[in-house]
């Protein structure tokens, strides 16, 4: 079992990442709170030794994604709410940021997750495939389709 100081360090370090993953998958704050508790509890009880900070971060992302998917499968999960409630209020958040987030979060879940992992976390198609336990080609297809969809909504240039 990990010590309290280790856990507090992890919360401070990875809370934002986990919050972002929750934003991609979940529709309300109560579910996000549940996921935070689940993920960090798994961390406390886990005996995994992390080789690097990247390794630790990838572990948190993967555990959060799995926990979110489990929660979504759960019969008892809370009802969904509007996107306004999903996006955490922040002083730094401009109207443009909000629009982009809403565009991403309006996509079907399979597109949302690849967009987030690729554009925000910077993982490659191969890494995402491994993380989500999917075929690499499927990931590229999903990414391309998602890009097309976002382009239609947001306009703007291509990234590559």
């Amino acid at each position, binding site marked *: 079992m990990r010590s*309290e100081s280790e*856990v507090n360090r992890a*919360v401070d370090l990875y809370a934002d990442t986990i*919050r*972002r993953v929750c934003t991609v998958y979940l529709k309300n704050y109560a579910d996000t709170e549940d996921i935070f*508790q689940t993920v960090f509890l798994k961390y406390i009880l886990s005996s995994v030794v992390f080789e690097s900070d990247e390794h630790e971060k990838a572990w948190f992302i993967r555990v959060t994604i799995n926990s979110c998917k489990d929660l979504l499968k759960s019969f008892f999960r809370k009802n969904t709410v509007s996107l306004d409630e999903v996006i955490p209020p922040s002083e730094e958040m401009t109207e443009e940021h909000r629009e982009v987030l809403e565009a991403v979060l309006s996509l079907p879940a399979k597109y949302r997750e690849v967009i987030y992992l690729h554009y925000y976390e910077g993982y490659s198609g191969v890494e995402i495939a491994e993380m989500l336990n999917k075929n690499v080609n499927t990931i590229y297809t999903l990414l391309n389709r998602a890009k097309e969809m976002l382009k239609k909504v947001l306009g703007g240039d291509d990234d590559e």
Partner: protein
Amino acid sequence: MMMNNKIKNAFDKVRAEDELKRNTKDFLSARAARTVSLRRFQRTAVAFACLALVMLSFGGWRFYMTPVSAVSIDVNPSIELGVNRFDRVVAVEGYNDEGIDLAESVNLKNLNYSDAIETLFASETMQSYVAEDGLVSITVIGTDERKSEEMISRIRSCSYAGSPDVECHKGNRTEVKAAHEAGMSFGKYRAFLEIKDFDPEITINDVQELTMRQMRDRINEHSGESNKHSDSKGAGGHSGNIHHGGNEGNPDGRQNHGGN
């Protein structure tokens, strides 16, 4: 602006609320405390379970090792088998020197009592005594009447017990206790009591070294005296084995039989 930058900037603004972090830390610290106390409880529970297991095993062992019935076998060697609830021999005790030697020479522990009797009679030592002196007395002391009957019928079905030179009796606990206090096996004590009926002055020392054949002969002899020509059981068949000898110190003319 390129799309990837837009997405990156937008997601960058998503931050975990302070309240969320605080609540999570509080939850985890409470949970950790509970886990620690649960582990402490588990450790205590495991210790108690181990103790209970040890006590149960010990209890089970005691339960197994406690004889509830006994089978006393007397030729001249007097030997008594302690039989537990599961019909297994858990104690073998010799009540005279020959009996002690016999008990040491054959391993009867943990055998079913009928198998133990078979093994005992098949042993060379026992065979030599039986060949020498013929009469075998087997006495059964069961937990109750029904158990004694059952044990006798099983013993009678043993190949050696089928011989006419084998007597089977039932005994009771009071007599067994008296026999043990007198330092005799029950079969022999029972024969001693029979002789005592006819000869009240006889002492345990007088019969200690006698074989069962000799004791049976005495009983037959006395019963022949008190009930002339009565055909008591087994009296005629074994008379050829009697070794009579004079006994000057015996006022009633009681026969002193040659010991081994």
